[in-house]
């Protein structure tokens, strides 16, 4: 039974009897009228961000070059850093080791059955490589590369992808001139137009198809973890 705390009740009663009336009184008189209490000034929350604070976190680089730091790096320098810090996962030539991502090659594969999407074959903007490599690579040690190292690695990857020559030096100044080949092949979401047929107030309910055949079976492919649970008809 969940009864009041009888064993402590006596002490409590006494204590309550001498409850500080003065304090309670004050509490009531001082209570903010409800109207005033609900007038909230939104501007009151948050504090101004300092320039150094913004600088510490504002690491993004845009296609128009906004965010690029001062610095430069050559294909050659890039190759060095890449072999040291990246090749273990991505291969000496960006070809990828094991299941780690491939960074170079794949040109002309986008319409094929197995497209290989790399910086050279797929990415629209070189700025993305700068941004991402400095942000998140080497995997587990992001933001450790200097600006010069990052320019150099990007130059090396551009070279591996046949976008720049072997003697190229990438810098803040010439970055805007680098164009990636697949850039023109991106277009904005147009599903509401191109897939208009998927809007349909009265989808078919009866005899909608002819003969239905199983054309593909996951079980035969057999790549599911743990295999599968069997039926257990009683």
């Amino acid at each position, binding site marked *: 039974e*969940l*009864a009041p705390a009888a064993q402590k009740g006596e002490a409590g009663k006494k204590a309550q009897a001498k409850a500080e009336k003065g304090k309670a009184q004050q*509490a*009531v008189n001082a209570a*903010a009228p409800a109207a005033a*209490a609900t007038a909230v000034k939104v501007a009151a929350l948050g504090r101004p961000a300092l320039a*150094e*604070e913004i600088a510490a976190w504002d690491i993004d680089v845009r296609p128009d070059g906004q965010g690029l730091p001062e610095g430069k790096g050559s294909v050659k320098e890039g190759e060095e850093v890449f072999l040291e810090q990246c090749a273990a996962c991505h291969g000496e030539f960006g070809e990828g080791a094991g299941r780690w991502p491939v960074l170079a090659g794949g040109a002309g594969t986008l319409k094929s059955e197995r497209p290989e999407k790399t910086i050279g074959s797929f990415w629209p903007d070189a700025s993305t490589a700068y941004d991402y490599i400095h942000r998140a690579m080497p995997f587990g040690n992001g933001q450790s590369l200097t600006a010069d190292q990052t320019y150099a690695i990007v130059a090396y990857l551009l070279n591996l992808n046949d976008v720049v020559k072997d003697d190229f030096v990438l810098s803040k100044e010439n970055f805007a001139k680098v164009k990636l080949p697949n850039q023109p092949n991106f277009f904005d979401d147009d599903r509401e137009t191109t897939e208009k047929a998927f809007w349909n107030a009265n989808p078919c309910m009866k005899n909608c198809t002819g003969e239905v055949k199983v054309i593909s079976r996951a079980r035969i492919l057999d790549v599911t973890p743990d295999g599968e649970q069997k039926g257990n008809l009683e």
Partner: protein
Amino acid sequence: AAPLSAVAARAAAPDPNIVPVPDWTKTLGVGVNNNPYGVPSKFEKDVVRREVEWLTASRESSVSFTPLYALDGVITPNGLCFVRHHGGEAEIDPDKYRFMIHGLVDKPLVFTLDDIKRMPGRVNRAYFLECAANSGMEWRGAQLNGCQFTHGMIHNVFYTGVPLRAFLDAAGVKTSAKWVLAEGADASVMTRSIPLHKALDDCLVAFAMNGEALRPEQGYPVRLVVPGWEGNMWVKWLRRLEVGDQPWAQREETAKYTDLLADGRSRRYTFIMDAKSVVTSPSPQAPLKHKGPNVLSGIAWSGRGTIKRVDVSLDGGRNWTTARIEGPAMPMAMTRFYLDFDWDGRELLVQSRAMDETGYVQPSKAELRKVRGENSIYHNNGIQTWLVHGNGETENVEVG
């Protein structure tokens, strides 16, 4: 003491939590399946159910309370739903689970768990479950310093189950039937009599809560859901339903869960949980930490239907402001309300007052005592008062 201005001060030097970049941004965290069944952040380790050890003699017949002060929104996470047992937590093998229905029926039947899951008409509904003894320790005055203890015998969960009516229909209820007895398979073999009209109306035989299987402490694999009615009736580990023509006068509906009034008489079959509310923040375990803008957060519920309005007072009930109901307000479900307010550091006497769709208004403790005395134990839905001190500390008090 902090300045009264609500405007945050300009930082003089870069925040060490921004410059340099924190470690968690510089090193990989654990992999995606570190916990195949996830757990809360280690920084939330205090957000747990708690017992009040002096309440009962045994931990198998006791209660551990929902930490309402740390929760928000409308759903109670399964791991934090309050627990009340009378014979400990039954650990039932779902393959061996059986549910029997008999008594004044044409065909007494036995169902397996699979049978229940194969019944047509499965539904999903959110309902609050409040123990009739919630706030029971507060009848004689403010006792426990935290809404976890004063109001923590409530949770709000989305149930998946089958209307009890489907089982009664399957068995064929005889015309003489008027009540049913629901019985649990735990060591207390918990029983409650339920009027047949309620059993046929909206009760559920539930096997899932908040998307997953019922938790063991909530009756795994099957519990009864009795929307809006006192929690003790929501029999856990449901094993049996007997149909009869009169109530059974079981211990939990005679010795317990009857409401002793001041004149020595006792009201019984007080099944419906009246409209009630409580401010969960600020509250003794969630003091105010800042002057300036603050969000007052609370919950309201009614066994009679949907919460229509909640008023909040910051001056002990003298003046009231209607709070903002936020998120779904579903019938017989916990409803969240907020009041955005600006605090200049003055002492506050915080209260909330719920109104439901029937027009019932949550009474003050004084109003309640006037009609019931102080010995009811159950059904204390009086308005709660928190005293917020100038330094933000908050206490459970009563005003008069």
